[in-house]
Structure formats: C-alpha cells, structure tokens
C-alpha cells in the first residue's frame, strides 16, 4: 500500500457575504498516490490549487476551506489515518512533525523571532515527544544539525542573524528532527538566490536519499522539478492534468498544457523563439465548463467544452486528462 492515497478529493472555499454564497473550487477531483522513498513534485501556476491541496494533505483545513468529498489515507506502517476524519488532538500527538512535517516558503514564520533557534527546537520536541533529559536533547539536536552540514553555532543565534538560505536550512533541520515519513516542502527556495537554492535543494535531496522517506515538493519552477523530483504532477485550475516520471514529463509530455509549459521554458544556450499561451488561468470561483484548459487550448474540440476529461493511464506511471490524448486509450 502506498504511503499516501488521495482519492477524488474535492476541497472548496465557501464564503457567505450578505447572504450571497460563493464557492472557490480550489481542489476539484484530485487523486494521487505517494510511495515510500520518492520525491514527488507538484507544479502549477499561481492559484492553481497547489497550496490548498497541501493544506488538505497536511491536515490544516480551516474554514472557509472545507473538504467536500474524497479521502486522504495515510499508511505509516504502524497505523493508518484518514486525514479527512482525524481528531485534531490525535493529529497533533501522533502525526504532525513525527510523521508529516512541513517546510514552507518563508521560514521566518516557523522560527520565533525573539527566541534563539535552539528554543524553537525545544518547543517542538517538548510538544510532540517531551524532553525528559535536557542534556541528551541538546546533544541530539547538535548531532542532528551537524549531520545536515550546518554549523552547530546556529542553534545559539536568533533568526534575524541568519541569511535566508541558512534559515531555510534550519527549517529543514527542524522538519526532519523526528525522521518523519513525509516532508512537505511548499516553494522552499522561491525567495532564494540560485546558488543558495541549489545548496538547499541538494541538502533536501541528501536527507531524502539517506533516510528513505518521501518528499512532496511543490514549486512553480519546472526546472527545479527536472533536477530534483522522481515523479511530477502538473496541476491546472484545481486539477492534476498530467502525472508521469520526471523523465517522461520533460521528454514526452502529452497534455497540451504540459507540452506548452515545457516548450516555453527559457534555457541558457537556447535562443530560439519561445511562444506564450494566450489567455490567463481561470478564476476558480467560476471555472470554464468541460476541460478547464479548453479556452486556452490550441487543439480544443467540441467535446472539450462540455465534457470533463477523466484521468486515464497511458502506461503504468503516466496518467493524463485530455480527450485528444485518451480517446483511443479507453
């Protein structure tokens, strides 16, 4: 059984202002599986539902976000959990940080600005496990930080004394202190310079290779996925439109949206003219009918306007949701 199974998940933001209810269908019928020991990349533009999907997967659903239907099933070996039904207290005690941890874009919001880094480690360890022996805890933390290649002195500094790259690496150290089964990294290097970005991602990759856990890497930057991920899922307007091993996504994409994205990426050494798609990503409060990509798709046929394409397996690991591609396959 996979580590995580997401089945036909729908999560909408429902708001009511002056009696007018409005729903934003940020995640609409998403299914995906994560296995042990892999780096799964989610790519998509802003407001395609990436972050909402992560909120549901990590169990941080708060109104107005609501899970409408579907399951989010975890199998941690010793026990199973359905994220859509779990009791918040149980989630805090058994799952969060220990099994699932989270690295986000601005790690300043993870680190307490008025306390030294070591205190943040202490808070997290105390909350989730308890610290019976302070000396042992300090030793363990020091070892952990050193194993990740960080100077142990950072533990005695305040967050503002660290550079952005160092803070992000400290956030990764925090996220891995309990050896969780799943590390969710949401745009972990977006605000960083390229050289630092490379260092931070190399560290994340090393940790993954060493401990054999699973990393869910979310970023809009496809070039990062090309270099880091094992499998990639492409999201568009609240749905996954294509999923395949990284190699396949970059060399033989099938969905017109993926094909366009890959073709339009600029690269050093390539001066050929790159074209941009017309139109803009849709508003999820009022998405287009049928395939949500059809207004921008150069290949759209009548069927695309009325009928939502289902995810169809082209091969064992390659799934795509497009009428044109899957017509003969079903």
């Amino acid at each position, binding site marked *: 059984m996979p580590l995580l199974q997401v089945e036909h998940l729908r999560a909408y933001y429902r708001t009511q202002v002056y009696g007018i209810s409005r729903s934003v269908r940020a995640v609409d019928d998403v299914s995906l599986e994560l296995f042990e020991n892999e780096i799964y990349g989610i790519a998509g*533009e*802003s407001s395609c539902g990436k972050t909402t999907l992560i909120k549901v997967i990590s169990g941080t659903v708060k109104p107005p976000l609501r899970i409408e239907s579907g399951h989010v099933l975890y199998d941690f070996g010793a026990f199973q959990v359905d994220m859509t039904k779990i009791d918040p207290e149980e989630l805090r005690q058994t799952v969060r940080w220990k099994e699932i941890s989270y690295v986000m874009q601005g790690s300043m919001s993870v680190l307490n600005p008025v306390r030294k880094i070591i205190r943040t480690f202490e808070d997290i360890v105390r909350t989730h496990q308890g610290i019976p022996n302070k000396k042992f805890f300090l030793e363990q933390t020091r070892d952990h930080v050193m194993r990740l*290649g960080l*100077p142990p002195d950072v533990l005695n500094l305040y967050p503002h004394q*660290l*550079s952005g*790259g*160092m803070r992000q690496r400290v956030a990764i150290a925090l996220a891995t202190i309990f050896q969780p089964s799943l590390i969710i990294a949401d745009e972990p290097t977006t605000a960083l*310079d*390229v*050289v*630092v*970005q*490379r*260092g931070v991602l*190399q560290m994340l*990759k090393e940790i993954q290779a060493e401990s054999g856990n699973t990393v869910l890497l979310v970023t*809009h*930057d*496809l*070039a*990062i996925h*090309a*270099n880091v991920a094992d499998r990639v899922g492409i999201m568009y307007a609240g749905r996954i439109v294509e999923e395949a091993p*990284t*190699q396949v996504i*970059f*060399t033989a994409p099938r969905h017109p*949206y993926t094909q*366009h*994205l*890959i073709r*339009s*990426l*600029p*690269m*050093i*050494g*390539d*001066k050929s*003219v*790159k*074209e*941009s*798609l017309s139109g*803009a*990503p849709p508003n999820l409060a009022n998405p287009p009918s049928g395939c949500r990509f059809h207004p921008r798709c150069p290949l759209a046929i009548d069927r695309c306007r009325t009928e939502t394409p289902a995810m169809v397996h082209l091969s064992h690991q390659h799934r795509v949701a497009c009428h044109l591609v899957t017509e003969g396959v079903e």
Partner: protein
Amino acid sequence: MSKDKLLHVDRVTVSFHVGGFIAGGRLLAVNNVSFSLEADRPEIFAIAGESGSGKTTLARVLLHDLEPTQGRVIFEGRDLATIKRRGDAMEFMRKVQPVFQNPFETFSPLRRVEDYLFETAIQFGRARNRRAAAPIVDEALHQVGLSLEEVRQRYPHELSGGQIQRVSVARALIPQPHLILADEPVSMVDASLRMSIVNLFRKLRDEQRVSVVYITHDLATAYYISDRIAIMLRGVVVESGPVEQVLGAPLHPYTRLLQESVPKPVVTEREQWARPINLGAMEVKEYGRVGCKFAGRCPHVMEICKHAEPPTLEVEGRAVKCFLYDEGAGPSNQPSLSSGKL
C-alpha cells in the same frame, strides 16, 4: 562626452552609510561601474546578479532617482547631475521610462488602470485631453497585444498578472521613450505568461528601436533576450560582454558558479547540478572585503585575490575582473583602478 552614445555610465559608485552614528561604516552598493549603450544600435542590455549585488541601486541611479557618490551618468550627451529644473526632469523622464517588478504595486488598486495611461499621455504632452489621448493610449496597448476596449473601466485586480504587466509596459511606451529600464519585470508573472512579456521587449528593440536595460536575477531569460550582459557581485561588475560568450562560456569563477547553479529544465543534467557546492563560507559579509569580493568562496583563489582588487581584462571578447586571466599576476603587481568599459 560624445553625442552618439545613448547612455554612458562612467565609473559610478554609490555608497550608503550603515550602522550606528559612531560605529557605522560605509557600504559600497555600486562600486566603480561603467558601461555604455550606443544611440544608433538599439539593444537589450542585461544587468544580472543575486540579491544584494547592487542591481536595483544602479537602476535608481540610471533613473535619476539617486545621485551617485562618485562618477557620472550621461544620457544623450547630458550629465544627469545637471538636471535640476522641472522641465529638464520631465524631458529626461519622457525619454527614460521604467517598468517595475510588481505590477500590482505599480498601480493603485483603487484606480482604474486606464487613468494611468491617459495621465501619462497628457502629462508628457502627447495629448491635450482624454479624447485626444484615446488613440495614443490604444496604440500603445496594441503594441503589447491589448486594446483600450479590453482594459476600459477595469481595476488592477480584474486583470491577470501577465495582462497588467503588459499594461505597465504600454504605459512606459506612451511618452515614446528612447530607453526602457525594466527591473525584474517578469519575476511576478506566471510561467505560462512570462514569455509574452519577455518577447515584448524583443519586439520593442526590433520594431520600435527602443533600447532596454533589463535588470534581473533570472539568467535563463537574460540569455534569451539580451544582446550583452553584465554580471554583478556585491556592487562590482565581474564579467561583461556579449551574452552568448558570458553565459555560454563563462570565464569568471563566480559567473561559472552562477551559470551552473541555474537549474535547467532538462533531465539530462541532473548529475552536474547535484555536484555538491559549499555554502558555508557564503554567509560572510562580502561587501567589506578588500580585493576580490568572490575570494572567500572561489575555488581558484590565490594569495593576491585577498588583498588587491583584480584588474578588468579583455579576454575572449568580454571583460573579466579576475587575476586568473592576468598574465603578470603576482604579489608585485599593482592593482589597476580602472574598471571595465564596454
């Protein structure tokens, strides 16, 4: 200075005072930078570097928003330091137009975007009133692939990131500028729309013969559109020249590290990108470093790099500021003070 240069940046240095009243120091945000753009040959000139390299400070100097501490900026034969009167300032602003990073900050959310376009047309004397300005505004919008019909009565939040950034380029085109200064114009724009903005600058160069100074941290788009590039590190231009040479076959060790670190959207170069790099030494303050700013993490560092400023040398069609390419490099060598002239 000769009139055949559109823009001539002559040994510009900007220093800021940092720290407290007593223990404060000076920080050279831009350190002895020189380059020039020809008037008769429109081009896209990229200034690339990481955060803290002084790109944006340099942009402020070029926009006459900040006086350089030393050096001169000459635009079409006129030293910016001599622009004092409002009329002269308006004339300069008409010819040099900016495009900024975040279009949602450029435009007030409470005003219709068309108001900015009409205002620009009237302010710079292209039209007397809104009715006369309408065709001018419409034409500028057509150049960026939009029309007045599409943006009429719209507020910034009603347009997508790509659309509104194109409106800000259209606004910059209304005064018919000779130079556009674009500071990270695509970093807030989604991937599927990014190339539409980038291609726009290319079109402006080729069809409108407008020169563009393109300031960015994104080397891939810089390679794609620019003709020449200058790589900045801690206020210093370390390498500059034709983009095919500087990014295609970089010579300065810093340019090499930077170019290698840009992840490529292909699966064939994963191993090279995964080659471990040393970040530990990066956290030091490099601004205050005497000698080469990159000496602290350069794999080829020599003794001389640590205490003498490297000379700018002409090597293989580009300018490189590095002792590695200095044939007579040695402790006895006097460090040259001249900076790279392009």
